[in-house]
Structure formats: structure tokens, C-alpha cells
């Protein structure tokens, strides 16, 4: 533990701490451009120079490990002058075009030039200009502004695992780019915009849209996958302008996926802003809330509970599902399901459907078995976490499912689910690795569990976990990777068929046979609407997608940026969204709609405010009591044995960019499909 003195303050730091990190511990600001605490240290911008006693020249503090007895000064005239000079050099080729630069107002270079630079330029010679690079529909480049910190190169290389960026040429001619023109095809490419300390890489769809000081910032969470990335939503008026990541070391670190970041323009399109009722001519007509509720009440009147059903969709929040579940109980309907993918695995044990090791637990794993999942598409940040673990060395990953590039080497074991039996019985070479592992882990994809034999796959995964010592005190390596935000909360509160009730497939089949009179879709769009027969369909949601176009009554709800609502991520971590804007038109918060409807149906639910609802929810399900907390799930028997089918295991997601109503409505996501997925599909033909 080296002891050193910084600006006359003595401190002791962990071995290997750099001087810059030590300064941060003391709250001393050291300017920097190339240093980023999640990336490797190249020490090439020279902005973080400090004076160290007994060294002849200022030292780059980011790359200088703390030594015993070191005496560091960060505020001497030498340091201040060094910073001024470095700043002047960095600005030599930088176009001072801040007024037309999207980074203006939140630019490290701008801020540090004001804080540490000269008050005027002395450089009167010609500046160089660099041709802009084409990086696809998400990242805009103005390469003349680049100061060659290489953060983007290191991010692509280390975090994203798609090494396509580099520095080409040398000295005056050095340019950052891809050499051969190609779009940066990564699910994390938007983070390049965040790591860039200047305006060289900026958010393309957001170009020239707003200035940072015009925006109101709301700290909330993302619901477009089951990670629950912490985000900040920037709004101007009622319009969501952009989405940025927020630091949460246990969930998304400081990254978000491209869908999380760029699908926000889908929030402005295809919105349901008023209730609709299907008229006698078969066309949907705008209505007011009273008329819409009355239309539903007419249908429900006298209808037996068994012929009413409800399916909760992928973006549904916990409060709305809880209210809907209670309403269905009041109506005596046992037919509810929150798994619109039709999965029928055992949800009686929480450990059986959550990511028990937690996302941060990945960093302790040493052998990992992926079953029917492509984490790169289903949960890009979990994949980045696995890559991070692999980079540290010693991680072995086995894959049963599709053979794809996951950005780290894997051992491909085939797609046949029978491989699970081979591993279970020790007949597969990978079993040996699992046996000798210290912290083995299995990750079962939602795609594997949504199969007809999902219950049996769940059973085998549990058996593998038990056989290979994945579950013990202090370690639970049995993980289910959910792909949608609503699922864990839905299962936690038992939004599944009650005694004698029908699950999703049966509801759809019964609807087709005319045995379901009224089907309530709470944001459920991924079921086959053509098979619903003549059922009266109520769709509550925020986008005009498959559900709304089939519906007989549409109740306009709120998107995740427009309500304060609870979600459980795949770990079982309870997090809350916050309202950043109001829902459009007459749309309302989802729980309020159900509460209002319950009154019209004569079964008024016993709460009038969100706080009362949450209180009731916590009384019924204690898991909803603590925010940002993962309650370790007890390990009990779940699932049962049965005959596996031989159909190959697949991921549940093929098109990363369009998985839900918001991303399907987003023009940016459509551009990504054109730019990234179409060329691959064409090449495969």
C-alpha cells in the first residue's frame, strides 16, 4: 500500500492505483481527454500532466502508478503552464466551430479550454482538414474536430469487441477511421458518442436538434430489454430528444445498447392519443373515455369469468399488471398470462426464472454454458459483461444454440437440446470443464424456455446446475436471461393462469374457437392477432401496432418515459421509471385506466393513488418493497422431466433493432435494419 503526498495531503492507496486515480480519491480535478476509467490507458493526450518531486519533467498522471513516498503537485506554475501548452497544441488543428457543433455546451475540450487553456489563440497558420468517415446511421462524424485521444478505438476494441476502428497514417496525417468504408456494426456503437470527448463523433439522429441547456433531464430506466439499463431522458417540452446512459456499476456500468439510446424517436410516432371504438362498419373511430369504457362494460355484462382473458405484453409495468390481475380476479376470470411468447415453464420458484448470479456475478464466473440464447442481441450489456470477464482471462464459454460471433471465443456444442442430456450425464467434453470450475454458470435464454418443451429444458438446466455445483452458499450460477422488461415482475406477482385457467396458447386457441368473449391485451402485440376469431379485443397500450389494429376498443396508455412505474429486470432488481414527459392527447397512465375501468364494470379497485396501489402490491408481494435491491431467491425444486424435442435451440431475437412497439415505430431503428441487417441477409443468400 504505497503512501504518497498530493498537494501536501497524505494518502494511502491500493497498489497499482495511478496518480490520476489518487487525485480523484482526494477530489482534486485533473483534466484529461484520453483517459477513461473503463478503458486501457494510452497516455497520449498529455493533458493530465502533474509535477512529481525528483522528476525533471511533468508526468502524465494517468499512466503513472503511485509509488511509496511520492510527492505530487497538481497546482504549481509548472503544471498550469504545461496544461496551457498542451491545450494550445490540441487546439492547433481543432476547428473552433463550437457554435455549429453538437457537442457545444457539453464538450470536454470546450470546458477544459476555458478552465485550463490560454484566453486567446496564437496560431495563425493553416489548419488541416480531415475527410469525414461514414460510420452508419447512428454515429455522425466530423473528423476535423478529432484530437486523436483514441477512446473510440479502444472502446470498439475492448468493450464492444468489434475492432473496426483504428488510427491510420502518422503524425500530421493520422486519421481515425475504419480504413475501408464500413458502418460500425455493433449493438453498442452509440457509446462511441459518449466516450468521444469532442464533437468528432456525435449522435446522428439528434444532429442539430437541441442544445444541452435547453433540455430537462430525467433520471429513469430503460425497458426495451430485460436489463433495466439506467438512463437519463432528455426532453424539450413534451418531446424526448435523446437518451443517455447513467452509471450503475451492477447493471449497465456506463453503457447502453443502441436500441435503448436510439429507439426514442419511436416515442413520437404511431402513438395512440385518444380512445377508439370499432364501429359497425368495422372501422376504428375516435371516442372519449366514457364511451370506450361503456363499450367494454356492455360486453362484460353477464359474461362468465371463464370467457374473459387477459394477456400482459412486454412493456407492461408492474402496477398495471397488478391492477389488471386484481380486476380479472374480480371478474372471476382465471385466464391471465404475462408470457405472450407462450412459454410455459415453471414459475413457482423465483430462482427458476431470474438471473440469480446477478449481472455483476458474471465477473466471478469461470465456466459458462449458454443455452438457446444470443446475449449479444438479447442483452447487449450482459454480453459486454461476459466479454469483460473473458478479457481478464480464464473464462470458457460453451454454446448450445446458434453459432454466432459473440465477441469472445466460444466452444460450440451444437444446437440440439439433447446436448443438455450429454452434459448432464457427463458424456460431453464440456462437462469436464464444468466439473472442475470454481464458479460455473448456466445462462438459459428466453428462447429456449418459450419452446413447447421449455419446461423440460428448464428441468435439465436445474439438474445441470445442481450436478455441477452451481448452486451453493454464496454462489448461484443458475441464470435465466429474460428478454423483456415486464416478465419478471409479472411472474413475481403471479400474472399466470389461476387454477383451471388458460395460458397464452390456450387463450388464443379458445379465442379462435369462439370460447373467449373478451380478450384484454395490456400492451400485448407479439401474439398472432389473425387467430383471435371474433373475440371482442380490448387493447390498452401506447403504440398503434398489431394489437391496436385488431382491437375493438383501444385504451391509450403511456410509454415508459411518461409514467412513474416499477419494473423488475432479469436479475429481479426492482427499479422505477420516472415521468419525463406527459402522455400525448387523452392518453393516461396505465394503472389509472384499469382503475377507472374497474369502477365502470362495478368492481372498483381499492386504491385511488399510485401510492395506495403500491402499498397494496407490497402487501401482496413483498418483493416489490425495495428499489434497486435483488432479493436472493431460495433454491427449491422446480420444473419436471419430459421428452425433449430435437428442433434446434435458437435465440428468441433475430432482429435486434425491432423487438417491440417503440423500436418498430422508430425510423432510426428502421435505418439500422437497412444498414446492418439487410447487407448480412443479402450476403447470406
Amino acid at each position, binding site marked *: 500500500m504505497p503512501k504518497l503526498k498530493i498537494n501536501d495531503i497524505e494518502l494511502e492507496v491500493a497498489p497499482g492505483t495511478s496518480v490520476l486515480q489518487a487525485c480523484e480519491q482526494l477530489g482534486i480535478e485533473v483534466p484529461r481527454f484520453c483517459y477513461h476509467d473503463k478503458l486501457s490507458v494510452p497516455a497520449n493526450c498529455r493533458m493530465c500532466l502533474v509535477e512529481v518531486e525528483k522528476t525533471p519533467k511533468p508526468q502524465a498522471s494517468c499512466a503513472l502508478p503511485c509509488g511509496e513516498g511520492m510527492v505530487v503537485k497538481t497546482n504549481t506554475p509548472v503544471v498550469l503552464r504545461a496544461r496551457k501548452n498542451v491545450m494550445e497544441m490540441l487546439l492547433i488543428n481543432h476547428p473552433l466551430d463550437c457554435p455549429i457543433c453538437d457537442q457545444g455546451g457539453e464538450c470536454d475540450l470546450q470546458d477544459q479550454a476555458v478552465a485550463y487553456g490560454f484566453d486567446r489563440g496564437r496560431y495563425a497558420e493553416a489548419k488541416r482538414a480531415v*475527410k469525414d468517415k461514414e460510420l452508419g446511421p447512428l454515429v455522425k462524424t466530423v473528423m476535423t474536430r478529432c484530437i486523436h485521444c483514441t477512446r473510440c478505438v479502444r472502446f470498439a*476494441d475492448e468493450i464492444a469487441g468489434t*475492432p*473496426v*476502428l*483504428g*488510427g*491510420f*497514417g*502518422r*503524425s500530421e*496525417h493520422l*486519421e481515425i477511421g*475504419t*480504413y*475501408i468504408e464500413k458502418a460500425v456494426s455493433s449493438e453498442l456503437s452509440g457509446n462511441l458518442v459518449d466516450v468521444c470527448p469532442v464533437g468528432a463523433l456525435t449522435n446522428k439522429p439528434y444532429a442539430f436538434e437541441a442544445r444541452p441547456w435547453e433540455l430537462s433531464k430525467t433520471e429513469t430506466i430503460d425497458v426495451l430489454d430485460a436489463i433495466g439499463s439506467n438512463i437519463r431522458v432528455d426532453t424539450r417540452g413534451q418531446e424526448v430528444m435523446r437518451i443517455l446512459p447513467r452509471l450503475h456499476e451492477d447493471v449497465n456500468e456506463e453503457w447502453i445498447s443502441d436500441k435503448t439510446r436510439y429507439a426514442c424517436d419511436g416515442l413520437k410516432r404511431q402513438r395512440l392519443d385518444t380512445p377508439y371504438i370499432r364501429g359497425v362498419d368495422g372501422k376504428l373511430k375516435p371516442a372519449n373515455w366514457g364511451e370506450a369504457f361503456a363499450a367494454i362494460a356492455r360486453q362484460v355484462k353477464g359474461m362468465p369469468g371463464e370467457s374473459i382473458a387477459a394477456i400482459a405484453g412486454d412493456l407492461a409495468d408492474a402496477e398495471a399488471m397488478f391492477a389488471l390481475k386484481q380486476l380479472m380476479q374480480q371478474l372471476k376470470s382465471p385466464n391471465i398470462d404475462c408470457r405472450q411468447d407462450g412459454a410455459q415453464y415453471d414459475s413457482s420458484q423465483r430462482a427458476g426464472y431470474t438471473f440469480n448470479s446477478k449481472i455483476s456475478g458474471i465477473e466471478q464466473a469461470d465456466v459458462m454454458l449458454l443455452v438457446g440464447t444470443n446475449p449479444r442481441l438479447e442483452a447487449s450489456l450482459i454480453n459486454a459483461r461476459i466479454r469483460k470477464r473473458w478479457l481478464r482471462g480464464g473464462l470458457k464459454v460453451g454454446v448450445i444454440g446458434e453459432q454466432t460471433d459473440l465477441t469472445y471465443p466460444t466452444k460450440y456444442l451444437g444446437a440440439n437440446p439433447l446436448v443438455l442430456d450429454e452434459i448432464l450425464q457427463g458424456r460431453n467434453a464440456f462437462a469436464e470443464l464444468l466439473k472442475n470450475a470454481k464458479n460455473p454458470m448456466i445462462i438459459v435464454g428466453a428462447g429456449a424456455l418459450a419452446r413447447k418443451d421449455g419446461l423440460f429444458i428448464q428441468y435439465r438446466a436445474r439438474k445441470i446446475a445442481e450436478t455441477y455445483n452451481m448452486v451453493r452458499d454464496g454462489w448461484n450460477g443458475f441464470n435465466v436471461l429474460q428478454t423483456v422488461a415486464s416478465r419478471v415482475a409479472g411472474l413475481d406477482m403471479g400474472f399466470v393462469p389461476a387454477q383451471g385457467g388458460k395460458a397464452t396458447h390456450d387463450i388464443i386457441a379458445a379465442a379462435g374457437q369462439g370460447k373467449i368473449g373478451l380478450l384484454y391485451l395490456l400492451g400485448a402485440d407479439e401474439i398472432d392477432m389473425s387467430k383471435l376469431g371474433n373475440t371482442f379485443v380490448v387493447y390498452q397500450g401506447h403504440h398503434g401496432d398489431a394489437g391496436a389494429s385488431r382491437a375493438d376498443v383501444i385504451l391509450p396508455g403511456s410509454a415508459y418515459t411518461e409514467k412513474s412505474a416499477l419494473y423488475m429486470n432479469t436479475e429481479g432488481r426492482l427499479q422505477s421509471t420516472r415521468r419525463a414527459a406527459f402522455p400525448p392527447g387523452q392518453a393516461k397512465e396505465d394503472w389509472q385506466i384499469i382503475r377507472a375501468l374497474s369502477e365502470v364494470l362495478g368492481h372498483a379497485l381499492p386504491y385511488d393513488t399510485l401510492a395506495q396501489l403500491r402499498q397494496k402490491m407490497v402487501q401482496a408481494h413483498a418483493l416489490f418493497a425495495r428499489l434497486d435491491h435483488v432479493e436472493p431467491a431460495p433454491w427449491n425444486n422446480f420444473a419436471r422431466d419430459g421428452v425433449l424435442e430435437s428442433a434446434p435451440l435458437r435465440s428468441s431475437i433475430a432482429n435486434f433493432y425491432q423487438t417491440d412497439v417503440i423500436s418498430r415505430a422508430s425510423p432510426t431503428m428502421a435505418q439500422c435494419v437497412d444498414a446492418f441487417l439487410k447487407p448480412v441477409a443479402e450476403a447470406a443468400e
Partner: protein
Amino acid sequence: MSAPANMNAKQPKTFAFTPANLEKAKWFIAKYPKNREASAVIPLLQLAQAQHDNWLPVAAMDVVAEMLEMPPVRVYEVASFYTMFNRAPVGKFLLQVCTTTPCWLRGSDDIKHVCKSKLGISDGETSKDGMFSMMEVECLGACVNAPMVQINDDYYEDLTGDSFAQICDELAAGKTPSIGSQTGRQGSHPASAKKA
């Protein structure tokens, strides 16, 4: 120069080492420890360039990247960093004209002038007949006999505009001009010293 290569140049679709060069490449790779194969990137690029008319197409860099199990972009970075790698086609004779201070003081401008007036090429250009390419380079370490030009693998020193023009003529005619000092001095002996 290290300016971006002319990416419009027609790039061959594929590249493969000849069996002899493949053998040599393996010999280079074997010199480095396991998992450090990437260290062989420069010798392999040199081999590839020598085999491919003195320039490196993207396909060749990709082949090298695959052999060394490194991302192609890392190979492009190396190839673009060093001026001795040509990433676009060059003429049969590559004239690397040193223009650093000693050569410049001793008349490298005349040599550039000859390139322009006689061959019709300036920095980064190739003559119409495809015989000569010219590039300005920084110091090649023969300052004692400035000005100098490197043509393919050989140094031509103590040049004047006239002697350089004559060398170009001889090369164009398929002859082999004498290499080294054009005034006949040995090594870096003083110009006034007796000729050997």
C-alpha cells in the same frame, strides 16, 4: 508519404502467398513466442509487398491479419504508419526523394524539378507509362552524400539534376546504373580526397 492511399485504386479481390513466401512467412512467425505472433506483422507485410508489384492491396493485408490472428484493422494501422508500405499501385521504379534539410540544402529541389519536367510527376504520382512513381521522403540517413534518392532498394547519392536525369534514362532503357555516390567518392570520404 503517409497520406491516405488512393482508395480508388483497383483492389484485387484475393491475395495468396506463393508457396516459397508462405514458407518464409512461417519462418518469420516461428521467431516469436506463442500468442505473440502479431509481432511478425511487418516482415509479413514486406513479403506480401515484394510479391505484389511493390504495393499492398487490402486483400493482402487481410491475409496477413488472418495468418497472425489479429483484427484486420490493426494490420491496416501498421501498413499506413510506415512509409515503406505502398497501399496503392506504384510504378516499376519508386523514386523516394529525400527532401529533409541536408538534402534540401544540397539541391533536392533540382531533383524534384527533374521529376516534374522530365517524368511529369510530383509527390505521390506515377508517370503515364507506369515506369516511375515519385514520393518525397524524410531523412533516409545518407546526409553525408546529400542529396540522395532511393530507387526501389538502392541508394543513389551525391546527385545533381543532370546525374539524376541520366539515371532515370538508364533505368527506363533497362540498363543498371551504378549505385551509391554518383561523383565516385567512397563512403563518406571528403569530396576533395583522392578517388580510390
